[in-house]
């Protein structure tokens, strides 16, 4: 296994609060994303932001707001409506020295770009035995919970986690959003950066003005506990923290692991926690079957089977199409389901 508990792991005082100077401005995730882009673009003129409506409109979630005015149309490009071209053109830019940050407007619209992402961006380094590289970020809002229209609430992370050559990063709070995005931009490999739209503006946290990085490939432990481990990413981290708080009232001590990166997975942090607690519940929005949760269960099976007191439980989306707004609450994992799963695991 790789190195022990990563240095950077923040041990927050209460729940999600970051170790940002108290005087830092309080920002939403969307603002933190925008701030990361602006500060990196200022620092490195090879960075180009491109996508549908990222320029004059500032992005449909305003995550690129103001960038066009600040950096001009050669660095912030509104593109034609063609996801394949957005990524394919970014590959061309990246292999010739630019560092494109491409936006896919919603994860539900990433399919037309899958060929370019997986057959090209993710493979160029390997195909050329290191001669060429594709340092690019593919940002996109993902997940449900905001009553969006059809195809606007999908979670397809498993497709990319399964496909070698592309890193997959998912922040769960504004501090990490900025630090992880800066790491992603500075990474020499393609990074898929998934922004949980449900919490884009759901809360604010202090986010330092200056640049900082949160390393890719290291999980955080926003809550420590001894009875059971909850494993999640993105918007589900808050659900897990809520569940943990509820369970605490009944005397159950819950540890929460926020994976933050889905490829490469921080197996050490994960396994260490499960070895300690002996019980685990994985929570994700995507469909259950062959989701990233299955991989987590498989890893625990491989590395901590003898320490398990109960089967690892999965609280996930169903194996159905993501329902539209009116039924989505029935689909998405929520606090009660997580609490129930924990109880089952404890009573096994």
């Amino acid at each position: 296994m790789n190195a022990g508990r990563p240095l950077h792991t923040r041990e927050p005082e209460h729940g999600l609060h970051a170790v940002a100077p108290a005087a830092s401005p309080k920002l939403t995730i969307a603002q933190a994303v925008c701030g990361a882009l602006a500060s990196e673009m200022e620092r490195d003129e090879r960075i180009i932001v491109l996508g549908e409506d990222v320029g004059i409109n500032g992005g449909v979630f305003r995550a690129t707001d103001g960038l066009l005015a600040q950096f001009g149309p050669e660095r912030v490009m509104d593109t034609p409506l063609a996801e394949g071209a957005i990524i394919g053109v970014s590959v061309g830019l990246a292999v010739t020295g630019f560092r494109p940050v491409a936006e896919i407007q919603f994860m539900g619209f990433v399919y037309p770009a899958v060929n370019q992402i997986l057959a090209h961006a993710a493979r160029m380094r390997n195909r050329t035995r290191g001669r060429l590289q594709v340092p690019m970020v593919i940002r996109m809002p993902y997940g449900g919970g905001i009553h969006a229209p059809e195809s606007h609430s999908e979670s397809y992370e498993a497709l990319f986690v399964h496909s070698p050559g592309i890193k997959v990063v998912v922040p769960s709070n504004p501090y990490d959003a900025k630090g992880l995005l800066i790491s992603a931009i500075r990474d020499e490999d393609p990074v898929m950066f998934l922004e949980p739209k449900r919490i884009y503006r759901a809360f604010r946290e202090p986010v330092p003005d200056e640049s900082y990085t949160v390393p890719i490939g290291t999980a955080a432990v926003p809550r420590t506990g001894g009875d059971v481990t909850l494993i999640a990413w993105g918007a589900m981290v808050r659900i897990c923290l809520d569940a943990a708080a509820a369970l605490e009232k009944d005397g159950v001590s819950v540890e929460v692991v926020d994976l933050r990166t889905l490829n490469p997975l921080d197996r050490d942090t994960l396994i260490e926690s499960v070895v300690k607690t002996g019980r685990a519940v994985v929570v994700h929005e995507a469909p259950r079957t062959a989701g990233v949760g299955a991989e987590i269960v498989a890893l625990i099976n491989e590395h901590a089977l003898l320490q398990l007191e109960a089967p690892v439980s999965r609280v996930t989306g169903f194996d159905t199409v993501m329902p539209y707004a009116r039924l989505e609450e029935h689909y998405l994992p929520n606090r009660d389901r997580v609490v129930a799963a924990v109880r089952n695991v404890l009573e096994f």
Partner: protein
Amino acid sequence: MPRTIIHECAVERLEILGPEGQLDTELMPELDDETVRALYRDMVRMRTFDDKAVKLQRQGRMGTWAQLKGQEAIQAGVALAMIESDWLIPAFREHGLMLLRGVPGHLIYAYWAGDERGASFPEGVRCLPIAVPVGSQLTHGAGIGLSLKLRGEHAAAVTFGGDGATSEGDFHEALNFAGVFGTKTVFVIQNNQWAISMPRKRQTSSPTLAQKADAYGIPGLQVDGNDVFAVYTAAVEAFERARSGGGPSLIEAVTYRLGDHTTADDATRYRTGEELEYWQRRDPIPRLRRHLEGRGLWDAEQDQALKEEAVRWVASQVDAFNAMPMADPGDIFRFMYHEVPPALAEQLEWLEREVRA
């Protein structure tokens, strides 16, 4: 053996009823007075239906709404050119045409309110559900056009896209496929000048969208999309060509999205008030009313009555929408497959147990 011209193309634009009410009487299609009045009525109903949806959204009764305002002439004109056996494969801004093809208004509202039942159309309505992934419906239009050809049906498939949709690979693949197989397909591009914040002229460098047809060896025509007679004439031509085995065609209908992209959008961020005013003066509905009035077929009183009738009709759709019982959460599972597989049945059980509790 030098440089020789081996191919030429010419793209036409068709206009019949000008913005100021000028009429090209030679090109004017033969339509009886009642039909022209019906066109106007259809357009007013669409506008009323659309306006109401925006209100419902503002009241929190609907998730998001994609406004059709300004694009009524295209939808009324195409509808008039269609026969019962024709298929409609919409994008997501064809509510007006869907209504005219028999999709109940309350279902359209339900869909946009986030209820899947809104895309379960009554038996016999030859209309696909709307397609959210831009451009993806166009190959279905090619496929249904092929289906009609293979069966020898006297019918055509009409499929819609926006100016933005022409940039997607699907547009290309669909038109190319249709050209190769001579499918019974009519492709209509509602060029409303914007794809969210992207102006038409930055979507593609070609001066017209109609000329893209030539890349597939099929006819392309531009029409004034705010001129219902031009749209109707172009559609009749394209539908008859398709139904009689003459192959697919492309119509670029030039119009303007008078509203925001959707209720989640704020168009003032990216376009000017002058541009909006320019196009408001070209609004297809007053244009047709002026024409009717000019011909003595319409007066203020009739207009008032029509508008009241439209409001009543829309209210009835709202009532029907409001009257829909909440969908059963179990529906999430029931339509995934012809038969629910065991593991899915188990998940359904979990949900049912939870809902009961």
